[in-house]
């Protein structure tokens, strides 16, 4: 009898927890949730741009090995892909969110091009050029994050 009651209590707690989780996860997104996700995407894209910039600079200065450069670019590309996936996986719930999306979208698109170019670049000039472009993009992303971070805070 006592064991049965114990099991019932444990089961009730488990069901309650699971229901709570389900409710939390299936709640339709609001602006706050979308805003936070967008900031995370921007931060991920920013980190990827900075990483690729540093790797390009190292390569241009002949301070790294081919294997390491490849791995560092790969890590940047993976980080960007992750951010992209998160960005594409959420639809903006309202007009305000859509405006947010429209501001970040072009930056991400540009980063894909820049990253692809710099990963392909062979000569030092192209690498330096790519690094400068990535630096500029990283700044834009950073401005986006600090501006929005304060606005949504």
């Amino acid at each position, binding site marked *: 009898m006592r064991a049965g009651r114990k099991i019932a209590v444990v089961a009730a707690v488990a069901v309650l927890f699971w229901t709570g989780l389900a409710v939390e996860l299936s709640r339709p997104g609001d602006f706050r949730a979308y805003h936070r996700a967008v900031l995370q995407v921007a931060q991920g894209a920013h980190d990827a741009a900075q*990483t690729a910039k540093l790797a390009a600079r*190292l390569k241009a200065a002949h301070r790294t090995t081919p294997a390491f450069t490849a791995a560092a670019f790969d890590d940047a590309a993976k980080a960007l892909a992750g951010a992209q996936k998160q960005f594409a996986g959420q639809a903006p719930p309202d007009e305000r969110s859509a405006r947010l999306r429209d501001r970040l979208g072009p930056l991400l698109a540009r980063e894909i091009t820049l990253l692809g170019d710099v990963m392909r670049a062979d000569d030092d000039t192209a690498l330096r050029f790519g690094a400068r472009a990535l630096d500029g993009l990283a700044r834009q992303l950073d401005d986006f994050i600090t501006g929005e971070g304060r606005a949504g805070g």
Partner: protein
Amino acid sequence: MKRIFSVALGILTAIGGFVDIGDIVANAEAGARFGIAHAWVLLVGVVGICVYAEMSGRVTAVSGRPVFDLVRERLGPRVALANLTGSFLVTVLTLGAELGGVGLAVQLATSVDYLLWVPVVAVVLWVALWRAKFSVLENVFGLTGLTLIVFVVAFFHLGADPGQLWQQAAHPGPPQGEDWGTYWFFAIALFASALTPYEVFFFSSGAVEERWTARDLATSRVNVFVGFPLGGLLAFALMLTSATVFHPLSMSVDSLSQVAMPAALALGKLGLAAALLGFFAATFGAAMETGLSAGYTVAQYFGWSWGKLRRPREAARFHTVVLVSIVVGAAILLTTIDPIQLTEYTLIFSAVALPLTYLPILVVANDRGYLGNRVNGRTANALGVAYLIVILVAAVAAMPLMMTTRMGAG
């Protein structure tokens, strides 16, 4: 002369052996996001591991019994079994994280994906633990791990602004754009990285295998009180270089290649090579220690024969546990979980499991039945109790902080 040499070797091995994948990841991540605003945590952590490693070394040298033996004697079979389960799981997770670290370090040197290296590393690790003379391996990897000094050199080459770093260190707290929750989350990860439980199991079991007696206490203390702080200095150098290069760019670090970049920026190819070699040696050395520790804890709970100095067929159950742990550790990685993320989880779970390890040590170190007149003095007890409180608070706070900060994502 020979004595001085062996003491020096012990210190050097302790320095190189202090750093593992947890220290590498936690210090670099904290440095990038918070500058060196966590410097004090590292200091607190290093003093803590010194206090408790000294205690466990003393207990083992005087009583001849390793730590986990005493855990069961003092806590009884049921609580000790819960303790064993927790410690064993954390140790195997750590083993997986270290294997991933080795794989990533080799990937950075060869550009072959780390997942392909994981099975190879696991086999090499097992062969090393099966056949090789452990003291030699320990010394080789400990000494090679010293190449991480490259981060100290790199820091001075990077020409950081000392005033700004001092500002960060003197004003602990989150910089703009970060909150207190993430600050404390990283503080706990750093604290756990300095105090990882397997270090104590390994340290005391090694002392039993080397048949330490009360006469070896002085050597033990020198190793602990000189070796660990210097090892902590290597970890601090990782935090410093990361704070110098990444923090001004307001970027976070989430891959091993990023951690190595400051060495390449400051010192070029040679610096990069030293950094990668250091990562490899530190993680492989730690993988050996965690693999053995997994076997030690189980064997010592059940009273089986254990140890590297016995023929494997005379310690079949111990060697089976080691083998299974390595297989499980490798299998965790082959699920393609990101090794860096695995490390972060491991650190948080270690923080939760810490009190289980450290409370019994403190109790036994006060037991005259084992230690006679070598029980804890006032200082050791004051520090031990203070740290136990810190450890308990960290253990209780770890999980809630992990949830609320979403693994420090903010």
